[in-house]
């Protein structure tokens, strides 16, 4: 293999790439723009910003002490943004997507919930109107509301007028009951009698301190994000820039494959093949220029992310470079594969666009793979993008050392070798 033709091929391909302003914009500017957008979505709340609140409409048709307490608790909840429209208005808000969930507290809810609290009444239904496209928010609202309902009902039942009336009404009924087993009757009378004494004790002291407190969550949560270190916050831009850079370098390489088909159509390949240059040199030249362009796309994207969004390589710099180079080589050989298997530029462009989109989607470049079903997560291990994205994540925000780069590098080089072999054996060398 002689180096003058090889270097000439690389230089020519770089000149061609940079002479096409559209290619340069698509390859460098577009991934940065899209990654910035995705990064801002998936980064989560920063220290200086509040989390997005879930819009909830609460329709209080009961207007009892309990329902008012539920409403008040919801209004001060930091996760909810509560409005209080009428039922018709609430339905309209949910239907038009302006509110994720509407909660309807029906008339009689407070009284029924109080009765049900001690287990002897029918449980009342809390109405939920929800936007079916926002199931996740429905689940969150359901959980948050459970806490506020339990707190409001228990507070009222253990310290409020409704609880006092309930005990005064229930105690004589139990005492006069003839159907209840004697043992159970005695225990209930003792319990409600104690509750009545609790109600009737004079204000002040320890009783006053606990007055009007309902059931609260019996625990708090200590959350620790497992990032590169205890003081290092998760930076969603690291993932989004990895995903988008890989997507667009694959597009760029697919385009180089299509350009090779166009070169054949334009007779340029005849000129190349008539020169005393080996097939290995021709393919290597294409692969080398493709790998260089891919590497530039990746490094420019990450450079931007580092400067603007403070993405850092918390793992191994060597590992990061290794994965970047392996990814670039894999993408370049993917371009050769396109040139080898494509029948015409037009069909190759369509098929490869689909192939690249599938690879980046399954590889977790758009959304993390953990949201996929288990079988799909296993399946995506055969997608090179998955290894590239996971490897770059490991070297950036996860802060895993060089050991975390070895497997991704080996797998990506394995894919590159497979693509190269197929391309070299299937390439149409004969020019007719």
């Amino acid at each position, binding site marked *: 293999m002689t180096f003058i*033709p090889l270097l000439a091929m690389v230089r020519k391909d770089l000149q061609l790439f940079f002479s096409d302003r559209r290619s340069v914009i698509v390859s460098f500017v577009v991934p940065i723009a899209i990654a910035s957008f995705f990064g801002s979505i998936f980064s989560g709340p920063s220290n200086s910003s509040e989390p997005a609140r879930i819009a909830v409409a609460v329709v209080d048709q009961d207007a009892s002490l309990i329902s008012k307490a539920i409403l008040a608790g919801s209004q001060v909840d930091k996760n909810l943004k509560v409005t209080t429209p009428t039922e018709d208005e609430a339905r309209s808000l949910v239907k038009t997507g302006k509110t994720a969930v509407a909660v309807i507290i029906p008339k009689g809810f407070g009284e029924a919930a109080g009765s049900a609290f001690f287990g002897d009444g029918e449980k009342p239904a809390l109405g939920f109107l929800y936007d079916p496209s926002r199931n996740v928010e429905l689940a969150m609202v359901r959980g948050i509301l459970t806490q506020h309902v339990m707190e409001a009902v228990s507070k009222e039942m253990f310290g409020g007028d409704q609880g006092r009336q309930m005990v005064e009404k229930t105690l004589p009924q139990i005492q006069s009951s003839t159907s209840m087993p004697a043992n159970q009757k005695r225990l209930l009378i003792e319990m409600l009698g104690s509750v009545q004494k609790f109600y009737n004790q004079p204000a002040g002291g320890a009783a006053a301190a606990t007055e009007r407190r309902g059931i609260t969550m019996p625990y708090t949560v200590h959350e620790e994000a497992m990032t590169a270190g205890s003081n290092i916050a998760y930076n969603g831009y690291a993932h989004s820039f990895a995903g988008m850079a890989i997507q667009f370098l694959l597009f760029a390489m697919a385009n180089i494959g299509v350009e090779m088909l166009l070169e054949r159509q334009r007779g340029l390949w005849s000129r190349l093949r008539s020169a*005393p240059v080996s097939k290995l040199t021709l393919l290597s030249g294409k692969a080398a220029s493709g790998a260089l362009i891919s590497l530039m796309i990746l490094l420019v994207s990450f450079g931007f992310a580092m400067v603007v969004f403070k993405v850092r390589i918390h793992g191994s710099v060597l590992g990061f470079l290794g994965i970047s180079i392996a990814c670039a080589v894999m993408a370049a050989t993917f371009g050769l594969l396109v040139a080898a298997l494509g029948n015409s530029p037009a069909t190759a462009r369509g098929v490869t666009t689909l192939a690249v989109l599938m690879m980046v989607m399954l590889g977790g470049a758009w959304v993390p793979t953990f949201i996929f079903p288990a079988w799909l997560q296993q399946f995506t291990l055969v997608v090179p993008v998955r290894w590239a994205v996971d490897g770059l994540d490991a070297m950036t925000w996860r802060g895993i050392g060089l050991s975390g780069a070895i497997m991704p590098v080996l797998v990506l080089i394995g894919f590159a070798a497979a693509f190269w072999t197929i391309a070299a054996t299937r390439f149409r060398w*004969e020019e007719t």
Partner: protein
Amino acid sequence: MLTIQHLRKSFGPLVAVDDVSFRVERGTLVGLLGPNGAGKTTTVSMIAGLVTPEKGEVMVDGARLSGDTDPKKRRIGLVPQDLALYDELTVRANLRFFGALYSLSGAALDKAIAGALELVGLADRVNDRVSTYSGGMKRRLNLAAGLLHDPDILLLDEPTVGVDPQSRNAIFDNLETLKRRGKALLYTTHYMEEVERLADRIVVMDHGKVIAEDTLDGLQSRVAGVGGGKATLESVFLTLTGRSLRD
């Protein structure tokens, strides 16, 4: 200088070239004529190394040409039928690339570029993008690209397709200059008047075979002309290949 011996190539059931043999001597131009599908381009492709023959040999000064990297390929230049140029690049960038394929570099490459452009009259537009060139200028540049490494043998596959008379005439002048320099030229075309003007010998192919090989006079003597005069090359060609349409 260039000897073709018993070349054969088929694509599936179609035999494109069958037992084709001829020679091109130093300082001469051989016109390769034939209707569409006669096998001219496949023959040129085998000589240039683009297609591997099933049988037969291509010899340069008696030595068999073999393999992609055979140094003897440096002695052959190809001017393909298509405008095999990168429109997006400048003329200089194109020629630097094509020259480097023959391991030319540095001052030698610059000299080769200057010489080739001088020959085809494009030396003053070397920094322009190819896309700004007219069709005729691109044809001349296509010729220059095939000459960069100063080949002894030049294969020209319909090099004047779609050019104006001025550019065509300029290309003819270039080819005559190359002949005087001792180059061996193999020229395929459909234009009879080009062969009449340029060719020292003419090879006529049809259905993949050589059906006639002679000088212009020799071919004309095979067919009686109108009114007892010399037959035109076109009438000779039609007599040899028939008048049925070839698509």
